[in-house]
């Protein structure tokens, strides 16, 4: 973004107190760690204000000042708290060097409208800081899990070795446990069996129904839509309770009357239950894609002698494919992630990965869970990227087709 406002240097009377306040804030934490928060505030404020004064009035060279601050605070950090302290110090130094000149040169107004009052400028940045804090809240739990899964100890917290970035403190043993432990492997395999089959069922039926619903002459469209989406709205615990009663009767019928294998019946029950849960997602995404679909294309195809099946696969399918795939991914992750229903409907031989994690969290809590969690995070990042790419592609495709 280009500069909106011409910038000018600010008086020391504004810069120094602000820098001192920021320094005091940092000093409070350092001081609290060393024993006295109050002393920390005083030293931090004095040090930073002094630095700012020296840089502005005496040194007047931004690049040199930056290196002095970064290295200086890095050394102080190293002296107080070792290697980790040094990294914190380097980062703090980088921030303060930036912050002092950002204020002094008036760069903070560069991208704002020129007529804003000082209060409004402050409000603007205060608001950004709050938003930043909320983003941190959103992302921290995920970021905390990643390094902890490499812990060499069986603890759920950062050990001193890890904080010193000592290679001794890290290991892959939880991952090894996941890949060698029978329990985990079996549940992983179960998840890989159940989720794809459930996804295929919900995608096939869901796409058909979405196409049917998109035609203009469907009687009771609203009611049908309501029924089809209801598995997403009804709380899982209620769906699970209902399915528990119902599928145990069905299961008894299949086993007793038709003489099917108990294990096989168990899989059928869980797959059917998961397929139902995935359907709303398919319906919603495919319907959304179909909104922009030009019906005259299918008429044109029919006009040229293509049958309905051929029209569907040659014309309609390629255009709505992105929506279908992203609906399928939603359905997949719903099933892959689902624990309440499988807990109620399935039996021990259908134990899925989330179920295993759930029992692990409730009973014998083992750090292998964190390794599994990390693997799942990686999977979800991959899925998220796929969905995002598909969305862009879909928009591009629809942009090309005549509106």
């Amino acid at each position, binding site marked *: 973004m280009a500069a909106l406002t011409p910038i000018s240097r600010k008086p020391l009377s504004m810069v120094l107190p602000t820098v001192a306040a920021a320094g005091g804030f940092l000093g409070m934490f350092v001081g609290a760690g060393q024993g006295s*928060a109050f002393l920390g505030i005083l030293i931090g404020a004095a040090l930073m204000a002094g630095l700012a004064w020296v840089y502005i009035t005496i040194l007047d060279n931004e690049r040199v000042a930056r290196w002095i601050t970064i290295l200086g605070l890095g050394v102080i950090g190293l002296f107080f708290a070792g290697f980790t302290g040094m990294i914190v110090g380097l980062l703090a130094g980088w921030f303060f060097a930036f912050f002092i000149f950002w204020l002094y040169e008036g760069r903070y107004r560069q991208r704002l409208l020129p007529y804003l009052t000082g209060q409004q400028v402050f409000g603007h940045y205060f608001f950004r800081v709050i938003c930043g804090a*909320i983003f941190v809240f959103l992302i921290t*739990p995920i970021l905390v*899990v990643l390094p902890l899964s490499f812990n060499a100890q069986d603890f759920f917290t950062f050990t001193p070795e890890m904080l010193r970035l000592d290679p001794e403190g890290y290991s892959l043993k939880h991952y090894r446990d996941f890949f060698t432990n029978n329990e985990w492997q079996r549940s992983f395999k179960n998840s890989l069996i159940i989720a794809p089959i459930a996804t295929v069922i919900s995608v096939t039926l869901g796409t058909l129904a979405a196409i049917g619903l998109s035609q203009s002459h469907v009687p009771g469209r609203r009611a049908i839509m309501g029924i089809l*989406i*209801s598995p997403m709205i009804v*709380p899982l615990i209620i769906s699970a309770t209902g399915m528990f009663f119902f599928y145990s009767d069905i299961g008894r019928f299949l086993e007793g009357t038709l003489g099917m294998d108990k294990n096989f019946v168990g899989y059928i029950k869980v797959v059917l239950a998961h397929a139902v849960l995935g359907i709303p997602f398919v319906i919603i*995404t495919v319907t959304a894609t179909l909104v922009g679909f030009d019906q005259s294309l299918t008429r044109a195809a029919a006009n040229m002698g293509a049958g309905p099946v051929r029209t569907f696969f040659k014309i309609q399918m390629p255009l709505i494919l992105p929506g279908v795939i992203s609906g399928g991914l939603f359905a997949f992750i719903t099933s892959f992630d689902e624990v*309440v229903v499988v807990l109620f409907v399935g039996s021990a031989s259908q134990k899925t990965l989330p179920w295993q994690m759930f029992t692990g969290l409730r009973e014998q809590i083992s750090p292998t869970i964190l390794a599994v*969690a990390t693997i799942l995070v990686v999977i979800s990042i991959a899925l998220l990227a796929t969905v995002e790419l598909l969305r862009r592609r879909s928009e591009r495709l629809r942009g090309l087709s005549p509106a």
Partner: protein
Amino acid sequence: MLVAPLLLFVLFSFIVPIASMLFRSVENGIVQDTLPLTVEALQNWDETTGELPDEAVYDAFVRDMIVAIDNKTHTRLGSRLNYEETGMSSMFRRSGRKLGKMDPETDGPFKDQVIEIHDGWGDPNTWAVIKTHSPAVTNGYFLNAVDMRRTPEGAQSQPEDKQILIKLFGRTLFMSLVITGSCILLAYPVSYLLANLPMRVSNLLMILVLLPFWTSLLVRTSAWKVMLQQQGVINETLVWLGLVADDARLVIINNQIGTIVAMTHILLPFMILPMYSVMQTIPPTYTRAAKSMGATNWTTFWRIYFPQSIPGIGAGSILVFILAIGYYITPEIVGGTKGVFISNRIAYHISSSLNWGLAAALGTILLAVVMLLYWCYDKIVGIDNVKLG
């Protein structure tokens, strides 16, 4: 019709199970099926007199029990009646063997013999319980679900020490409201920022919202368990910074705070996404116009921007509230005993106490609340407008 296969599938594997749950919550055939003759004989007995039923009832009871013991159904009846009156289960189990050896044709009269086997059969209350719960369709489970019970004198409230469910319903509603409120507070500034930043930056920041949204629920729950523990990341950091003394670590797990913090985090994306899509459509010219006409920042926000963003708040709130009210996994893991929801009670009755009727009744009440909210959601937003990602 292309819709038909799916509609049938959903009807068969989703709507029918829910209906069977509704049915379960009032179904009570077990007393009549197991003790048909006794139930009939009890019709002539007036339980308000406080006297024991006469020989005819005992005779019918012995005949019923012999059949029931052959089919091994008497213990199931015992545990059914145990939900209503503690001690019934063991009474049926213990009397079973001796009653089974009797011969209804020759061994009568039975009244004293049966009372000899177990004192409980000499208590008019026992028979009153059997009679009260003999109809095939009962409101007993629903009365239990709201801390009342079915008695010969009509519905009465449970004794003080058994009244937990109303409190649990209240807590579920209260905590869902708190979670919804904190989601609004956190989501509003973020959605505002995302809607007003240039597209490229906001798409990047959107990843920070979508990543938690796509991450497995159990991953996030386990992350919160790791963070909130006594020896967890938050406490360790606070102790390291010296903000909290080592012996006064914060108790933020296994109570309401733990549930609220974790669930707010988990449900936050569901609030941000609808808010963002509404705020995106608010034209920035309106606020500029207001400012150019001399409105202060606050007036501009409160009179111009906020009213236009209300649909987003409404949509997000109902969505979050619906999701929160039925949550099971997260409260179960980080909620301890003080932070659990009504759904945890349902799961307990399904898998531990096996009182399925009560579980179904609780589920039905919860379902009714959710359906009401769903209807509101449909009125405000419309189910066709639900968007994902």
